[in-house]
């Protein structure tokens, strides 16, 4: 399946998608099996071995408490990417149904739901998330809640817009005349039309959310020590950036690659779907 996608993508000049997929394969494999390849415990403090340079034992050296940086990066990958993905999935699970209902039913329901969405949208999402996480208290669960609370509205908004366009189309009308229930019409006919757009959005959004998670940990609202979340690692390394800048460079590269990967994937998928749809119409 994947090779087929790559082949067609390549033939269509969709470099973004190919690069994104390759990066994704790399990151996923590091995340899933990397832990068993690195022979160090990411939490093992060794004060005699602080701030070591790269060596055959510690490939990327050790941090300010003598912990293996590579082990921490790999462990952090699971956490950072996992958190980003979970946050987006939950946001989709809330946002998409709300958007579908709002767009399809319309009227008062639509008005009420969309005013709530507008209300939340009127705040900058980062500030709002800081406020929520700040009130709930600094830990990863609360961070997740804060991110979901500010992200679901985006999906609700977009899906509602899509539904409003699709609703006008004849196939929906046909389905309604055929006496299908609303639920069935939404599920069988509208949802499949909406899904590709959601996937594209989600892919780009995961990158955004990973940045958000890391920023939060960086300012101390997310992961708490000793959890090796990438943003937290950046923050830990900050005090040493004159003595050992690599402490910040490694997690920085990790964040950059991951966000790049999801952005490429998102862009690639977008043109992929556009091309497919375009063909269908011809």
């Amino acid at each position: 399946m994947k090779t087929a996608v790559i082949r067609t993508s390549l033939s269509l000049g969709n470099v973004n998608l190919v690069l994104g997929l390759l990066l994704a394969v790399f990151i996923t494999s590091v995340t899933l099996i990397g832990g068993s390849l690195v022979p160090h415990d990411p939490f093992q403090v060794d004060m005699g071995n602080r701030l070591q340079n790269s060596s055959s034992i510690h490939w990327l050296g050790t941090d300010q408490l003598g912990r293996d940086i590579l082990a921490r990066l790999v462990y952090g990958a699971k956490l950072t990417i996992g958190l980003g993905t979970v946050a987006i999935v939950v946001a989709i699970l809330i946002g998409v149904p709300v958007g579908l209902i709002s767009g399809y039913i319309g009227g008062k329901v639509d008005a009420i739901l969309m005013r709530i969405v507008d209300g939340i949208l009127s705040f900058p999402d980062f500030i709002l998330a800081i406020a929520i996480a700040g009130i709930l208290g600094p830990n990863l669960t609360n961070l997740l809640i804060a991110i979901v609370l500010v992200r679901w509205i985006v999906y609700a908004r977009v899906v509602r817009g899509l539904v409003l366009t699709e609703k006008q189309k004849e196939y929906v009308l046909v389905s309604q005349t055929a006496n299908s229930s609303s639920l069935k019409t939404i599920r069988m006919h509208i949802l499949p039309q909406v899904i590709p757009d959601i996937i594209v959005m989600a892919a780009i959004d995961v990158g955004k959310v990973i940045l958000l998670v890391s920023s939060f940990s960086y300012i101390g609202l997310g992961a708490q020590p000793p959890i090796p979340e990438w943003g937290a690692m950046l923050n830990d390394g900050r005090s040493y950036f004159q003595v050992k800048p690599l402490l910040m460079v490694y997690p920085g590269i990790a964040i950059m690659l991951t966000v790049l990967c999801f952005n490429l994937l998102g862009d690639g998928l977008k043109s992929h779907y556009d091309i497919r749809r375009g063909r269908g119409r011809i």
Partner: protein
Amino acid sequence: MKNKKTIAGLLLALLLIITACNNEAGTEEEEKDQSTSEDKSLTMLYSFASKTIDPHQDWMGVRAGIAETLVKIEENLEIQPWLAESWEQKDETTWVFTLRDDVTFHDGSTMDGEAVKASFERAIEVNEALDSALKIDKMEADGQQITFKTTEEYPAFLSELVHTNASIIKTDAENIGEKPIATGAFQVESFSSEEAIKLKKYPRYWDGEANLDHVTIKFNSDGNVRALALQSGEADIAYHLPPESLKPIESHNDLRVESVASLRVHFFLYNSAKPELQDVKVRQALDLLVNRPVAVEEIMNGHATAASGPFNPDFKFASEKEPAAYDPAKAEMLLREAGYEKNADGKLEKDGKQLELTLATYEGRPELPMMAQYFQSEAANLGIKVNVVTVENIDSYLWEQQQEWDLVTYSNLTAPRGDGGYFLNVSYLPDGSLNPGQINIPEVNNLTKQLNKEADLEKRIDLQKRAVEIVQEEVSQSFILHPHIIVGVNQRVKNWKPGSEEYYLITNEMDVE
């Protein structure tokens, strides 16, 4: 089209010429400044920002050389005359101070007994903590003499007068919060809250005109920023540098690092309200997990002294006991005696309940979170789960959420005025202002109360030593180390050294080349 290009070219050339001229003018001026050295100035970067510089409410008044107190503590941590020439204790509650007669306020008026009385009246009115620390009942002024009557027998009165908030200011001045009028070597030129104080010298200063004409004190809470500002030359003196930022400063030719033992102690404070921590064996075990030599050498880069008790070992009343050695095996034994057994996951538990502790810490002092994480890993090796929480405002957290935390990385000044009575009062008495862990040891309370009434110096030392001994046995805190005050200084700064007390930062003697 061609025209436009020419005009653009001309404009660009003009711009270049103007900027070039500007630059030249700028450097010329600077050179002039240095060659005539008419205007000597210095910039200091300090960590804790002042919202106000009212000397009765903020420490910056005395620190910045604006205001002065009747007595001060010297390098040897003994009390010396300052604005007061001499003093005498008439009876148990009466103290008579003779003031210097050559001191003038920044507005030119003379400092006399009446002015000092007015200043103290205002100080204890606006500052409740100072009021309870001084316990002044009545005051009488007569020429250059002022008589204090304390509400009770109070031998610590003299050392409490060192308190920076007990400084002497002109009380009828306007805008004391921004431009206090006092007696120091420097007067305020301008002050912007939590940002900077600009000072200029007071030419008629009683102890000799200051060498510097201008001093700027800026605030920045980020230790790395302070270190960088020193390296870039933006600041001449940078206070409280993080130990890990020192390498580039030490190897820099124009900069030096001054490190002086402080009157402070970093410690773990245990929450006595928590059932797990009420067992002294558990506290002893946790204390044995603290590796002091590693904390001193690795976390503080050697800029600290291992601690066995609350007081700096230079004090006569400090504990002479050696700091407890790191001994996880003994800790495990003690925990076993306390009824904890390892369960299937290798975690310690008692009656089916796992030993899990919440360790609060804060980033204001960057070494504290590191000590917390280090302790966390040591505890994990033994099967104790420690959750580290980093909080923004540690004091309000400790007081308002007393049921949440089990232990905290804390740091207090223990003998800020050269006497340990302060710390014993605020940290161990049940209503002490620094006792969020609700420590309540009857023997210590009794000793503290005796101490508050004891005037004889030898007996005071003995009482303080006995109190510390009990505290050490009870392990109500694990004292880790006395951090040094680490200050980065530009080599051009002369006649200046940081003091342990951290009260007199700006002096008339300091100078620049």
